[in-house]
């Protein structure tokens, strides 16, 4: 890509010649000049920049925060080791797809090595012979047992979840998290700016550094305040949404329980009515018999 300074001067000479300066006795002759020094200076500057990028890529604070060495800085492939060799050879070359991993997969025959050909496939071997259905001697009892079992599941599994959610209504994790996030992000942004400036070889004066520090302190304060305020609104929104969900759930539970209470009350009424009817029938029977006996005398 880089053609060298002598090439540039030759091109300039050609251009001047084509404009007529070459034919009117005005001729530029650079053959006696040695441009090797200029080329070397350009080469050196380029190398310094690449070394600087390589150094910055090697200690990226963002990557440390994220626990990853590859996030945050785009790999341009121009990073160099101190000896001038590419820090990451072949980084610019088109990357080949990663080889398919040979993962041991447990098959019907046991643990073997099998190539993964498709992702997300469902293991379905087609229709299978199903055994005979078990005979149910007492469907009423079976129904009662299953219904009780399902309700036990509700009481042991669903209820604790609902109660856990009720405890979440007073959650303030977003608000508590906001200052920590703000601090991390402001530090990251400061580090990024410092790093980028160092990539260009910029050296700030003490006054500029002081001003920058004051400005950063000011922005940090604003950022924390803003983050906490946003988090408060977000927390309120989140807690309100959860409250709405739980209130809807409570309404559904209320509806269900009302239905059940209605059933229970209806059954008691039925039993009381049946008892009353039976008592009345017994009395009618008794009086009927007595009446018949009296009537027969």
């Amino acid at each position, binding site marked *: 890509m880089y053609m060298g300074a002598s090439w540039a001067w030759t091109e300039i000479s050609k251009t001047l010649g084509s404009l007529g300066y070459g034919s009117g006795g005005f001729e530029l002759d650079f053959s006696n000049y040695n441009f090797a020094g200029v080329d070397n200076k350009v080469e050196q500057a380029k190398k310094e920049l690449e070394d600087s990028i390589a150094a910055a890529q090697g200690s990226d604070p963002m990557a440390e925060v994220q626990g990853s060495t590859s996030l945050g800085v785009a790999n341009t492939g121009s990073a160099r080791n101190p000896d001038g060799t590419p820090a990451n050879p072949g980084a610019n070359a088109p990357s080949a797809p990663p080889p398919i991993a040979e993962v041991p997969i447990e098959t019907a025959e046991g643990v073997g090595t099998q190539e993964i050909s498709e992702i997300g496939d469902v293991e379905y071997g087609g229709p299978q012979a199903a055994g005979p259905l078990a005979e149910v001697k007492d469907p009423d009892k079976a129904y009662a047992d299953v219904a009780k079992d399902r309700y036990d599941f509700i009481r042991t599994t669903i209820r604790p979840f609902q109660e856990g959610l009720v405890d979440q209504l007073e959650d303030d994790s977003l608000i508590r998290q906001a200052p920590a996030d703000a601090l991390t992000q402001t530090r990251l942004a400061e580090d990024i700016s410092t790093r980028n400036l160092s990539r260009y070889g910029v050296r700030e004066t003490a006054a500029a550094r002081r001003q920058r520090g004051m400005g950063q302190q000011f922005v940090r304060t604003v950022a924390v305040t803003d983050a906490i305020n946003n988090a408060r609104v977000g927390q309120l929104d989140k807690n309100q949404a959860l409250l709405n969900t739980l209130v809807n*759930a409570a309404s559904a539970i209320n509806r*269900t329980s009302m239905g059940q209470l209605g059933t229970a009350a209806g059954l008691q009424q039925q039993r009381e009515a049946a008892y009353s009817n039976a008592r009345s029938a017994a009395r009618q029977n008794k009086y009927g018999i007595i009446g018949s006996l009296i009537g027969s005398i």
Partner: protein
Amino acid sequence: MGGSSKPKPEDYAPTEMEKFNAAIAVDASNYFKKLEPLIVKDIQSASDLKLTQMGKGRAQADFAQALTKNLDMKLESDFATTANRMLAGVYNQTEANLAGVKAKNADIENALNIGLGLESTAASAVGQVATGQTGLAIKKTDNYFADKRAKERLVGKALQTAATFGTANIASHMAANKIDPSYQGMNPFTRARFEVGDDKQMSAYETAFGPFGRRA
């Protein structure tokens, strides 16, 4: 069926389709029992899933990638760039936190709805069982007392018949005593009968129990 009117349990045996219906219902219920851990897993996942951390990590990565593209020295020298970066980074994370909890809330709502659906179904089933069993119990009790009343009516009828006979017997004795003063019988289990003797006089005699009985 057949014979007397007394039914046998097999007269009310379930049909083949009723048996099949019960069998597949229990089979499906057992299958649901196998899937029940999935519901528990769903609830646990809604409770534990670190969506916020995931969202924050991704937001951070996207943000950092955007920052390292197209570096510009003029922009880098300007403090406003740093300030914007700081504010944008904080906003980015705050938004990621919020997006994370919103997504989590959606998962929680979903799990909660599943639980509510199960509860409603279970409550309905318990209600149906209770209604069915109470209805059956009432019917059985009604039938039991109806049987007892029928027995009492039978006894009452017998007593009524006996009383009818007894009063008729007493009446016959009283009539016999009026017609034949020498007649002394007054037993409710016997009846007085009249006869005309050779002397053309009406006399009474006592028979055993009924009006057509033999002379006692």
